[in-house]
């Protein structure tokens, strides 16, 4: 159990490649925090800095208020799991799991009991225990690396895309396991992933990274519902948030977001000057669509329909503006038909067009 604090951590590879750019974040104890972002965003480097596998070019790392920046990995009492299962190929599954316990010279009986617990926890098949790790399937080997990582209490558990290489069935199984275990043992877990679904499934708190920078760090619900930046709004969700360029204006005593062919009435927003260039953001699943005319709703044309799994994605066009709305597959909408859409005000988010940051 430990909290982790990164203070102005920067990592520059070579002379010019800034992998992590002045990152400050506090990871509270007993939480599952996901570092989320596309390939190359610096999430793995951040995790490696916490682990001690990389030394930050500048900035400090603290575990439980102790400055560990210059401590080697093995002195930090952490464990790690990687995308590719790291197991001792020539040892049996049992020996692999027991290894960290043996290193502590624990008595044989105690080791046996603990391995038994872990085998049950990760649903490792009993018949696999005496099999050499190299003969097992990838997903079974990953179960063993996880059991190995959780064998003895650590300050922090670091998991780097541990499920990315698995088949969908094992991935779902192990997602359930990891979440259950973290809830049960209540430890600090840092989980790196590029998959927003995985982050929203597992994390108490999500740190969204992009080009080495920390864009948003908040509880999972907030990152999804109140993105601080258009990138975050786009990256989470399938498809991501819609953005419509607009200008804040007043007309006939009303306050409007003027997007040319679309005008959206909005309440008074303090500190927002008339003429300010904005982007209106709304998630596809939050747009209401009707086949019949409704007062105050926006008339538009459905130009394209796409099936996503058991949902329907509509491309709705007004003038030169296109937004995507995700609706039930039962809705009998066809292409090139007039429909009406509504943006419920509780789901509308505003962003500055230049900085791409949210306006509160």
């Amino acid at each position, binding site marked *: 159990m430990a909290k982790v604090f990164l203070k102005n951590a920067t990592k520059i590879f070579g002379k010019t490649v800034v992998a992590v750019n002045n990152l400050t974040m506090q990871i509270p104890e007993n939480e599952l925090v996901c570092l989320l972002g596309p*390939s190359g965003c610096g999430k793995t480097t951040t995790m490696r800095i916490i682990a001690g596998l990389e030394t930050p070019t500048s900035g400090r790392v603290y575990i439980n208020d102790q400055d560990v920046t210059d401590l080697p990995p093995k002195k930090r009492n952490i464990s790690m799991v990687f995308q590719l299962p790291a197991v001792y190929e020539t040892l049996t599954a049992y020996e692999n799991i027991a290894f960290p316990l043996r290193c502590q010279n624990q008595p044989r009986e105690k080791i046996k009991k603990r391995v038994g617990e872990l085998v049950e926890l990760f649903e490792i098949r009993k018949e696999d225990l005496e099999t050499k790790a190299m003969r097992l399937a990838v997903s079974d080997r990953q179960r063993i690396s996880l059991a190995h990582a959780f064998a003895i209490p650590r300050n922090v558990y670091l998991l780097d895309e541990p499920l990315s290489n698995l*088949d969908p069935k094992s991935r779902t199984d192990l*997602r359930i396991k990891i979440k259950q275990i973290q809830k049960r043992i209540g430890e600090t877990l840092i989980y790196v992933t*590029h*998959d*927003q679904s995985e982050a929203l499934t597992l994390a108490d708190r999500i740190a969204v990274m992009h080009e080495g920078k920390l864009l948003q760090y908040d509880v999972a619900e907030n990152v999804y519902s109140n993105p601080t930046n258009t990138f975050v709004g786009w990256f989470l969700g399938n498809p991501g948030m819609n953005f419509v360029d607009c200008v804040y204006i007043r007309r006939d005593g009303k306050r409007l977001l003027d997007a040319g062919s679309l005008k959206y009435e909005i309440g008074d927003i303090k500190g927002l000057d008339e003429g300010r260039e904005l982007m209106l953001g709304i998630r596809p*699943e939050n747009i209401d669509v009707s086949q019949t005319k409704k007062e105050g709703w926006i008339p538009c044309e459905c130009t394209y329909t796409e099936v996503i799994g058991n949902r329907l994605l509509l491309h709705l066009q007004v003038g030169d503006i296109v937004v995507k709305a995700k609706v039930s597959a039962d809705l009998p909408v066809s292409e090139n038909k007039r429909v009406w859409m509504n943006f419920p005000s509780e789901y509308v988010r505003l962003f500055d067009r230049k900085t791409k940051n949210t306006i509160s």
Partner: protein
Amino acid sequence: MPEIRLKNINKTIEGKEILKNISLRIEDGLFTCILGPPGAGKTTLLKIIAGLESLATGEVYFGEEDITDLSPQMRDISMVFQDFALYPHLLVYENIASPLKAKRMPKKEIRKKVKEVASFLGIDRLLDRIPKQLSGGEMQRVAIARAMIKEPKVYLLDEILVNLDYKIREEMRSELKGIAKKMGRTIIYATPDPLDVLSMADRVVVLHKGIIEQKGSTKEVYTHPKNIVVGGYFGFPEMNLVDCVLKRKNNKLFITTDELTIDISEFKEKLKERKEKEVILGVRPENMNIATEAVQKRGNNLVKGEVVLGEVIGSDTIVHVKIGKDKIKIFVPRIYRVPIGEKIWLHFNTRDIYLFNRQTGECILG
């Protein structure tokens, strides 16, 4: 453009039967998915169409023409593989141009065609890079561009989205569907992922252990699976399946499990010829709901369970629920963060159920 017909195809590789008596008509100009788990024989089937696998028995027709013995180069077909297979040392431009160079087309013409295809796929700005400098999605587009430049009548795509990051995969699905629509060519796409089929395909062929279990329009096969192999596999998330017993009592019809009894007398007529008692109840996750209080009060078709995990997929949530020994999935069309261990009531409509014979797997209702 002609249709493709496969007639009585058998294929054995190293003593293992990969495809068993496959006969199939692939309609011209449509997007057809070959859906099946790993090892079903999907890739082998594509390779046979491409001419990359020889045949001991069976025939392949392109329209009226028997092309069984025609070499791959002579078939008007392009195949794109899962691992892209780009030339790592060549520029993107050269990668795309390679099939035309092999045909010794004049340079000027090649340049024109590469530019056209690249702009069609939105990769014109990448032409001077080498594959290493591209993202997964970009590499995939280059591979598609290289296939397109030959202007084949038929495209064979083998699990081409599997290796991409989640977000890019989602975008590529929508893009690929758009590209297919614009080109109007025949596309045969092999995949283990039902979402690919639901999102892109006009037609689906469900392949399982070398046998075609069912073929037809995507909607038809989804709504009316012939058997439990198709019903259980083709869906996202997969259909919930629970062992049940069919009972007749007082002129009424019930299915019962340890946890609940459901009155399905509405299907009495439909099922009156059926003799089996042991059945499997199938309910798709999108047809299950978390019961509101009002529904709970009515009290029909309700079953209590414990939440195992709320798994977010895109902007939807699959709630995994434990009911007795069974594990059930519910599809919730929004982000729904439900605490682990929470007790919830589940509800479904009998009109949405499927029943399968437990011995034969045949679909008897749905």
